[in-house]
């Protein structure tokens, strides 16, 4: 038996996963109570997520700071200020889009982590594949060249539009970056537009650097990492919730540059890279 073949382990791993899988299926054959929870918790107003969706976290925090009881004062949040589109001023994060306020404000630290997950994955790709090359693409046809030249500028424009309107409409930095990266993929396959990996990496690392810097500046201005220190403006206007606007733009640039680096590395390694 070779040393690397550790078949007993594989067998037991399979068995374990199978048991877990069967256990997952078991509720189908049972008449249980399901996710039944305590009376206190089944009231939806008692949950943290409720206040996230109301966008009135600061309000409940102010109430809680007087009396540290979470469950007593939940009725008061019903009378929270109603948000009027185009009129309400200086809200806790002036985004019109609920998802953005959760992703970049209440749970901004997680988004930072996800940004780094993407960054480190692409970095790993360039480390592992830097010595290899896979250039096996056919010569582009006339139709491809014309089509790509027509479509690509519009795709980049749409990408920029989406990350600039991340706080107003569905979308944001991640999908915008994916659209921009698709545009670069088109230009690479369609008209062999040979962009430099090192330039893209420069954009990528600088954008990441400034995201962290903006978040760290919150320590100075608000006394808390990722705190919002720029004016939030009027809900629904383009120039509202300034910090989220800037960070989402940087995220869009970063994700676009990152995915383009990944595409280029898969296309022909880092051969044209002069480093």
């Amino acid at each position, binding site marked *: 038996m070779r*040393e*690397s073949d550790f078949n007993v382990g*594989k067998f037991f*791993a399979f068995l374990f996963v199978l048991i*877990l899988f069967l256990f997952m299926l078991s509720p189908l054959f049972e008449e249980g109570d399901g996710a039944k929870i305590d009376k206190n*918790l089944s009231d939806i107003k008692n949950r943290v997520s409720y206040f996230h969706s109301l966008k009135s976290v600061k309000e409940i*925090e102010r109430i809680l700071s007087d009396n540290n009881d979470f469950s007593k004062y939940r009725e008061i949040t019903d009378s929270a200020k109603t948000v009027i589109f185009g009129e309400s001023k200086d809200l806790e994060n002036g985004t019109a889009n609920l998802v953005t306020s959760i992703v970049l404000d209440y749970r901004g630290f*997680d988004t930072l982590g996800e940004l780094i997950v993407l960054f*480190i994955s692409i970095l790993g790709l360039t*480390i592992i594949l830097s010595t290899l090359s896979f250039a096996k693409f056919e010569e582009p046809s006339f139709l491809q060249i014309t089509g790509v030249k027509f479509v690509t500028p519009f795709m980049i424009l749409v990408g920029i539009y989406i990350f600039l309107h991340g706080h107003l409409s569905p979308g944001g930095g991640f999908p915008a970056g994916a659209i921009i990266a698709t545009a670069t993929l088109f230009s690479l396959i369609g008209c062999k537009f040979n962009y430099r990996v090192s330039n893209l990496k420069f954009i990528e690392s600088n954008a990441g650097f400034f995201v962290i810097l903006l978040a760290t500046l919150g320590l100075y201005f608000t006394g808390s990492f990722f705190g919002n220190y720029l004016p939030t403006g009027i809900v629904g206007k383009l120039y509202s919730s300034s910090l989220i606007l800037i960070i989402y733009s940087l995220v869009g640039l970063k994700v676009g540059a990152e995915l383009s680096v990944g595409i280029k590395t898969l296309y022909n390694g880092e051969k044209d890279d002069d480093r």
Partner: protein
Amino acid sequence: MNYNLPVLLIAIPILFSFLSLILGSFNKILSKIILISVIIFNIISGICIYNSVLKNGNILTVIGNYLPPFGINLISTYTSISFLILLYIVFLVASLIFVSKNDDRADKISSVLLLYLASSTGILLTGDIFNLFVFIEIFSISNIILISIKDKKLSIKGSLKYLIITSIGASLYLFGIGFLYGILGTLNLSEISLNFDNISYFSKVFIFLFFLGSIMAELEVFPFNFWISDSYAGSKNYVNILLSGLSSIVALYIFIRLFLTVFGYPTFISFSYSLPFNVKTLFLTIFGLSVIVNELAALSSKNVKRILGFSSASSLSLILLSLSTGLKNGVMAAMLIAISVIISKPLLFLSSHQIMKGKGEKNLNSFIDGFRRNPLFSILFIIGVFTLVGFPLTPSFWGKFLLFISATEKISYTTLILVIVVFSITIELFYYFRLMHKLFIKDENIKVEKTKNNFVYIFSGILLASIIIFFSVKPYFTQNIVEKTTEDIFDKSGYIKSCLKSGEIDDR
């Protein structure tokens, strides 16, 4: 004392990992300087936070100006911060070795190492279950990259195996979080641990098993341990140190936080679980089996790195076994064994690498005549072995002694624990003494050339050995640390109060 200092331990490495790429494109030495200076910054601020925790108790760091449970928060407890300082010392050793070597990709790898540092710090400090998941993700991806950088077939194979196993683990973890969030509507660890008792039995079991399955992948526990054989043997020296020393700390801490603080209920002397099946029996079966299988795998291996890898997995399982007894003595034993394993395993990897230097195959026979070739590192290797096995006066000895004592208390499967521990010690002694015997075999026909040791290796080897000796000759110091850590682990209501301020828990 600034309460925002803990967040800088995460933010500064991330910030400089981007800078390391930018500046490294001009000169590779700059990125190495950045790496070392960031670690020194982290060590100094870690010690500052340690002092502050000693004075004021647990420290809460709020992120985004939203108080918990609404926003994300970091909690620095005594356990997490003392684990953190231990982690930084091991990381310093590994990165010194990395810096001493020439590499074309130094800027990229130092950036990965900085993110590794940030993610492991994040895992130890965070008080939010989804944030924990994000950091675990970064941690495992950087592990995958670091395993694969040797550019050999074996290393790519090892990293692919690790990738598969961690992605299974991560998806199980995500399922668990989904269930928890759907039922409780919160992601804060303290809030979850307050309300976990109120969920129905069925969902409780469901969530518990999801988390158990996911964490077992990180923990190198038996059904999920097949990646060890290639990952350890195929990766570089400093990566071995990180895998054996750092991953153990991180996995151990995740286990403590999830299965003792969140799902468990501490009483005065032991932990209990309000689940419909016997959790302790389950833990005992898994970890006991894992100890035995890993020891046998180490015994049957010929490659030295593979032996050390399986051995570190088995000692991690032994720590978990003594944790899962749930007794105060058991937890103390676990901490004592953990200290000795975390420091001695990097020492063993370091010294075995130096002893086998210049030999083509890294198998058992490359240890022959090692003492004449490299006397310093042979002595360090022997110190490491004695610490790991539990030679009297080392922390590991006291740990195994306490485990024996706790096994004589009234817990189920007493004899089984005793048998497992004795069995593991015996096999460990056998294969380590086989290696140590090879060191002193003299081959008179061959003229021996002394190996030249790099200064960095000598420095880090002596640093680790002196830490072990310090812990051994100052038993009261060690006892003090371990007792405080144990108290902190048992202090569930303190953890919740430091986060929610208003948290009340019935001490059952």
